[in-house]
């Protein structure tokens, strides 16, 4: 059976509607593609999460060769999007990239399962974030 891959707009429609402030519902077990942030513990640092779809596309016909599989990447590591979906907050691509950069450049962001103590070292003005 011939199947066309889902378009980018269709896959990301929910995420774009949420960013635009339109009324959207985050149904348990039904993750949507897009960029998000997540906190593992109360007071902990935000972790960048990306939900995307993995698919095998036939280069000759452009059709799907198998089912589209929804995947997640949390702080650069593969993750299952279903159990974390209702804890995710949608963010823009620019904010997602800025959060990734923060995790790369600030050591205190690495302890993601511990509340962040902002009093240990003062937060300085950002250098080159968006």
């Amino acid at each position, binding site marked *: 059976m011939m199947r066309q891959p889902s378009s980018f707009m269709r896959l990301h429609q929910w995420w774009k509607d949420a960013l635009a402030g339109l009324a959207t519902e985050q149904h348990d077990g039904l993750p949507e593609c897009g960029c998000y942030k997540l906190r593992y513990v109360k007071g902990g640092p935000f972790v960048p999460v990306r939900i995307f779809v993995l698919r095998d596309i036939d280069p000759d016909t452009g059709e799907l060769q198998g089912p589209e599989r929804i995947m997640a990447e949390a702080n650069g590591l593969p993750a299952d999007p279903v159990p974390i979906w209702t804890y995710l907050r949608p963010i823009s691509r620019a904010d997602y990239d800025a959060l990734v950069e923060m995790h790369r450049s600030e050591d205190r962001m690495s302890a993601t399962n511990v509340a962040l103590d*902002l*009093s240990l*070292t003062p*937060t300085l003005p950002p250098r080159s974030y968006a």
Partner: protein
Amino acid sequence: MTVATRPSDVALAPPPAVIGHNMAPAFDQEPLALLDTRINDFAAAGGEWLDLKEIATDAQAAHLTDFIAGARKLKGEVEAWHRAAKAPHLEGGRAVDAAAKSPVAVAERVISRALALISPWQSQKKREAEERERLVRQAAAEKLAEAQRLARQAAEHNDIAGEVAAEALAKQAVQETRAAERVTAGAGAVQSASGGGRTIALVTTRTAQIDNILVAFMAVRDHPYVVEAIQRALNERIRSKDFNGAAIPGVSIKTEEKAR
């Protein structure tokens, strides 16, 4: 071969000891020193933030929010240390206050009862002195009138000796009046029997009783206490949840936005 002693080899004499130099500090200095270091780090970072002059991006605003959150938490830690370091001294002070409370209360009660006992006696003495002053004034007025009559009579007969006597009589009347006034002013005061106690005076105090609040207000409306009280009452009204924005006569409402 001996080595020559240099002046730098000789230790300086220790500073002279003063009273209290061996006393332990009132609190542990080390935690405060650590907190001080962190506070100074935040102060330096605050200078970097102020160098920006204004916030221009969302990222700067978000990072500044983190800075403020960290500074607030650190302030909380300093305040917690403050409370903990002061607690033993506070408890000691409270124990001393509690121990002194009862004897002070008893002494105050004894004194107030004794003052209440002596007050009627003092008032009676004051009334008697005022009555004596009234009689002296009356006598002095008669003496003065007599002196004026004698003065007129001496003037008619060119009696110089009579004039001088009349003036002396008038002067005596004035002196007796003044002496009576001085006695009345100090009347009611009771001196110590032994000489070792303070004199207890009879003091007159005045207290206002408001018969008409609006009329009384007009008399004191410019007083700083009254202006401050009106300001506080108005602020309480316009900041209350039930305030509906209705205009208040004589008042204009200013609004300003501040970060908190």
